[in-house]
């Protein structure tokens, strides 16, 4: 069972290498490799989740070195839960990408570049969730970032290169900060194994602890797009190809949030940083949602809501109670699925009409009723309309905030409700303009842009939607809806994961208590 843990990281990497070797030939085989790999990853992740939930954290050592010195992969409840959701989401997005490539007859570049970059990114994401070593977390970040650089600048058009420049420089800066944090950590503790760090940090003087914690937090805050380090996100994400934006929005920021959860719960439990995190959460929620209200482009609007809802998760983490943490974990799971499905549906709207600007869209309700439903359901889910999972996630967080009872926590609860309301406003505004109102053009819901007008390659617009394309988006919407039905098991799982995290002991003893092959350095 332990040997399965490395598969979610290894398989996508191997598949990426294989696809680079094959190049652009054998397209059917190539799509089969991409999808097959991700299916296996989903199955393995589910198996790991069941195993980790019943038996406690699973650990495997890599490269034949023992835990504190060598790198180990740890699959506890939190990481396997994240793994299951992320692999399910990436599978749907991959099916979407393959189908749209086939439907639009654009096979050369996607097979040759898009798929390998996508798979490397998936490997980076799974590695970030599973790793038990801080330096390996850095490597995982670099893996997913280098994949995302390629996906973001895919095609090398002017707008993507412009967005890519901001994104790359921002990511490089955070990587350098991460390395500095690692140097400081290693100098202070002599180890980078997370389990050993959890033990050793407590013995350090307060100011050293705070220095390390804040540096690491800074790095993860950039990754998670927490205010005031969130300005890069709405500027860079909307320009990327749809499958890339969808998976970025769903996963990359959540890797940052996951790292913050690990940092706050495992490495620095109950530190003095939580008050600061509360304010950060409030500012993230409000600035993000105000940005979303002001946007006229659906993709940009969604990017701002993405930033805004990161605030909820940070709020849950900052409460540093089991209930708050469980709320944050539940919210992460909900948000990955909903945000990805919204971006995929927006991609379908763009495919249908050639634009994502609500000023030009209109009459889609009659022109494409299925799209209208597919957009409406996750939009309401994100806004937190009962009984959908967005409502349940916010409910748990509100309960946790009220249980905390401090004035700041109550302010945040109020801020969260305002954010939810404003999200609903932004969503309804968009939906009303793009779907509900009369079509502004003579062709209902159809705006065809010429090449000169956009400065990009001509956008293919077609009313024909391959079943798999709609199906992959619909599957994600359904997955997000299923969290309502499965809310009981899911929230109890999130609570168990949070309990395990707050207890800290299961994780540390699973890694260190198992084999004493080395004594650190």
């Amino acid at each position: 069972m332990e040997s399965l843990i490395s598969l979610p990281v290894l398989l996508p990497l191997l598949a990426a290498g294989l696809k680079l070797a094959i190049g652009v030939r054998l397209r059917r085989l190539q799509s089969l490799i991409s999808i097959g790999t991700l299916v296996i990853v989903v199955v393995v992740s589910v198996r790991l989740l069941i195993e980790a939930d019943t038996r406690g954290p699973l650990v495997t050592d890599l490269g034949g070195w023992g835990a504190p010195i060598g790198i180990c992969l740890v699959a506890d409840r939190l990481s396997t839960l994240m793994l299951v959701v992320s692999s399910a989401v990436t599978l749907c997005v991959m099916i979407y990408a393959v189908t749209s490539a086939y439907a639009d007859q654009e096979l050369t570049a996607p097979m040759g570049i898009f798929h390998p970059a996508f798979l490397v990114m998936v490997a980076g994401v799974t590695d970030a969730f599973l790793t038990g070593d801080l330096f390996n977390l850095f490597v995982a970040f670099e893996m997913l970032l280098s994949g995302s650089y390629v996906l973001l600048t895919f095609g090398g058009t002017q707008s993507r290169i412009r967005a890519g420049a901001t994104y790359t420089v921002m990511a490089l800066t955070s990587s350098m900060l991460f390395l500095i944090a690692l140097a400081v950590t290693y100098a202070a503790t002599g180890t980078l194994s997370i389990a050993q760090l959890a033990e050793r940090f407590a013995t350090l003087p307060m100011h050293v602890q705070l220095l390390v914690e804040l540096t690491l937090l800074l790095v993860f805050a950039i990754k998670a797009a927490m205010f005031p380090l969130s300005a890069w996100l709405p500027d860079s994400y909307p320009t990327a190809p749809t499958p890339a934006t969808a998976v970025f929005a769903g996963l990359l920021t959540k890797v940052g949030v996951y790292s913050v959860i690990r940092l706050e719960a495992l490495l620095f439990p109950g530190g003095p940083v939580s008050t600061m995190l509360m304010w950060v959460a409030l500012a993230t929620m409000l600035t993000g949602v105000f940005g979303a209200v002001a946007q006229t482009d659906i993709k940009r609007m969604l990017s701002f809501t993405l930033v805004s809802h990161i605030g909820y998760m940070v709020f849950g983490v900052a409460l540093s109670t089991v209930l708050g943490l469980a709320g944050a974990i539940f919210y992460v799971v909900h948000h990955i699925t909903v945000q990805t499905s919204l971006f995929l549906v927006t991609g379908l709207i763009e495919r249908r009409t050639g634009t994502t600007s609500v000023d030009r869209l209109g009459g889609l309700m009659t022109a494409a009723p299925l799209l209208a439903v597919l957009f409406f359901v996750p939009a309401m889910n994100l806004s937190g309309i009962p009984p959908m999972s967005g409502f349940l996630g916010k409910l748990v967080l509100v309960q946790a905030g009220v249980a905390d009872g401090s004035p700041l926590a109550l302010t945040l609860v109020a801020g969260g409700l305002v954010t939810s309301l404003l999200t609903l406003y932004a969503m309804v505004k968009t939906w009303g303009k793009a779907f509900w109102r009369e079509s502004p053009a003579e062709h209902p819901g159809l705006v065809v842009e010429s090449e000169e007008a956009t400065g990009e390659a001509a956008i293919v617009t077609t009313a024909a939607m391959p079943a798999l394309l709609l199906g992959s988006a619909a599957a994600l919407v359904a997955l997000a809806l299923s969290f309502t039905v499965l809310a009981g098991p899911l929230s109890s799982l999130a609570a168990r994961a949070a309990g395990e995290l707050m207890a800290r002991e299961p994780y540390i003893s699973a890694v260190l208590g198992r084999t004493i092959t080395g004594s650190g350095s």
Partner: protein
Amino acid sequence: MTVPLLPLAACGVLIAVGVTLLLERSLVRILVGVIVLGNGVNLLIVTVGGPAGAPPILGRFAPETMADPLPQAMVLTAIVITLGVSAFLLAMVHRTWQLTGSDGVQDDTEDRQVRLRARRGELSEGVRQLRAAYRRLILDQRAELARLDAARAEREVLEETRRQELEPAEEKRVRLLGLREEDARRQRQQAAREKELRRRLRVRQREALKQMRAAIRAERERQALALDPELEGDED
């Protein structure tokens, strides 16, 4: 553990140089900044990672004299990663140069949107001023015409009363005829002058209208140039 001062100072200088270069707008300088910054950070890891010592090869040196191999392994990884990312950044600099002819980082979308909105505000302010000037011109012209009309009406009334007074006197008829003739001549002159004035006013009006339209069109074109594909559709 004692820390050697010189390498640490070197780290500080390298990181400071790197950060300074990162803050530039030219992508090439940013690239150089990333490389310098990366070197500084790698040096930092090696420096704070433990004291110098013998190569960490088992069997040749006593374990106590060896340097800690872990930071070295980490730095090697970091160097490789920095190399790969630098190559990507270089490719992106090249592509930027191909597309725009410069390697500067362009403003982000929100900045450009704000600037565009300001320019649109200026434009509508300009249009408003032009319209106001045009309206003033028309008002002036109307006032002048009204004055002319009033003068003519007054003259007609005067003439009527004079004719009624002079009607019975036979010998005065001749003089009246002469007067009338003179009056008619004056009226004709007046009408011609008025016509000329009206024509000139019309020309001036047309000129002003044309000027205003040209100004608006030029402003629109300037704006269309400033619009870029990402911002399409937010025209109101």
